[in-house]
């Protein structure tokens, strides 16, 4: 077992390296990963300004920059990975990989590594930019922020894997991601903080997959999140990750439907 564990990291790195090369050669994927999150934050800042943020106790920049973590997860990880998984599946790469020593989980994780790296780099940049130029305070609870980010990454990878079941072609991969993208942008606090929503709506939105992630990151950066809320968010986040992970095990298709 120890032997297989020590072998598993090089295998995933090898797949990740190939996938990074492929990402570098795919202009559309690069554009989605690198520019879309920035563009969305820029576009949403104006919209955010129209809400009465006094109730939420946050400035426009604070809402926009903490919400940006959500956009990064949605575009750089979720959207990008759905395309990558579907493309590899349709190219019969996944089928071929499964004949080798690499386990199913290693194949999916290895393929996700470049997306994770891009997302992490963007998050670090975001915090540095926010603190040094946009007058945000230093991160108050790095532990909560890290927990949120980790949970967000795991969940986005698993949700991406599940989503591929609905995409028959590489083209439709763009389409099948839109429901979760839309629901998350509108309901997970990326644009509208839950604090300014009507209570019942906020309660429902709290249960959406990306909401606990944004709450943890926001609470981690800006502070003011009590232990009760933090534990609640972590539990919701883990629940979604487990559901998505289990669904992947059960329904992920490794070869094209013929």
């Amino acid at each position, binding site marked *: 077992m120890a032997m297989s564990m020590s072998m598993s990291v090089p295998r995933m790195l090898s797949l990740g390296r190939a996938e990074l090369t492929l990402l570098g050669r795919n202009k559309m994927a690069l554009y989605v990963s690198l520019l879309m999150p920035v563009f969305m934050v820029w576009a949403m800042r104006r919209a955010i300004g129209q809400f009465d943020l006094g109730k939420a106790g946050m400035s426009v920049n604070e809402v926009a920059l903490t919400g940006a973590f959500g956009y990064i997860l949605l575009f750089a990880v979720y959207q990008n990975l759905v395309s990558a998984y579907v493309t590899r599946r349709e190219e019969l790469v996944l089928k071929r990989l*499964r004949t080798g020593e690499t386990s199913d989980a290693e194949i999916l994780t290895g393929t996700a590594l470049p997306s994770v790296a891009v997302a992490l780099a963007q998050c670090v940049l975001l915090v540095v930019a926010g603190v040094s130029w946009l007058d945000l305070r230093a991160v108050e609870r790095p532990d909560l922020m890290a927990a949120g980010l980790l949970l967000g990454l795991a969940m986005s990878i698993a949700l991406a894997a599940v989503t591929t079941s609905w995409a028959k072609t590489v083209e439709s991969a763009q389409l099948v991601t839109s429901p979760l993208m839309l629901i998350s942008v509108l309901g997970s606090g990326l644009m509208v903080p839950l604090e300014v929503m009507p209570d019942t709506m906020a309660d429902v939105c709290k249960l959406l997959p990306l909401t606990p992630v944004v709450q943890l990151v926001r609470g981690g950066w800006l502070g003011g999140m009590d232990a009760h809320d933090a534990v609640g968010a972590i539990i919701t986040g883990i629940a979604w990750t487990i559901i998505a992970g289990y669904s992947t095990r059960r329904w992920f298709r490794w070869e094209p439907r013929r």
Partner: protein
Amino acid sequence: MDIGDSVIDVSGLRRRYGPAGDKGFEAVRDVSFTVGRGELFALLGTNGAGKTSTVELLEGLAKPTAGKVRVLGHDPFTERRVVRPRIGVMLQEGGFPSDLTVTETVRMWAGCTTGARPAAEALELVGLTGRRDVRIKQLSGGERRRLDLALALLGRPEVLFLDEPTTGLDPEARHTTWELVRRLRAEGTTVLLTTHYLEEAEALADRLAIMREGRIVTSGTPESVIGSYPARIRFAMPVGWFVGDLPPLAELGVIRHEEERGHIELQTQELQRTLTGLLLWARDKDVELEGLDARAASLEEAFLAIAGAGGSGEPVGAGLGAGLGAGLGVDSVAGRNA
């Protein structure tokens, strides 16, 4: 065969797709065979005979519905971690990321393989060295097959599964691949091969099995499989002579004969005896047997009689009619390969 010697051991294997009953389909029905160490075993059959469905079970890609599979003494599905590092697989249809180069692809695969050969060595084996910096999407179908083979060989496997390895290759590349497979076998690699090409099986296999409708209908060495089929002699009766004028056919060892507008076909298990009798008769009567053609049974005939015909698959019973039907079946196979 001594069980301790067998590298692949399959018994009572079944694989069913879909639900139970008429809606499902049983692709593999009670298949059993063993392959010894260092042996090259070929599975033959038309499309849909169940070859790939069987091989996928041996590769551990799916769980059998029933029966037992052992590869190197382990269950390839449940003990995948133990088995995979020791086997090499070439799927009938596998793929690579179209935007990677050949070398990048081999390097990716090497990173996932225990004790992998250097990329350059693997490409040299299959003659792709000159194409190492080319993107996958620019490779021809045959080059992709060779790259696939290079990946299967990357971990110096003890057991090699090749599912139609030369489909889509030009004749020269096919012979190069055969040489490579022979060399690997000489080095002690056990090979399980499926193929549409009978000359491939005849050239490479120590033993072979012919599958039809999910079952193995015949197996053995190529010689023994061919040996159970009759040789054929064809000629045209000279003008004015009739079949009844020939010496008694049974005495010449003929087991079956057909006549169509003066064209005769004789089937015999004793080619030399039948032919001698026939030729002595012709010299005696001073007649010429036009278009005389005598040939031993070939694997192709055996295959057509068994795999193509919808009949019983009885070796000797397969007559001309069955041969014709089988010919049509194989045409459609060739069409797919084109």
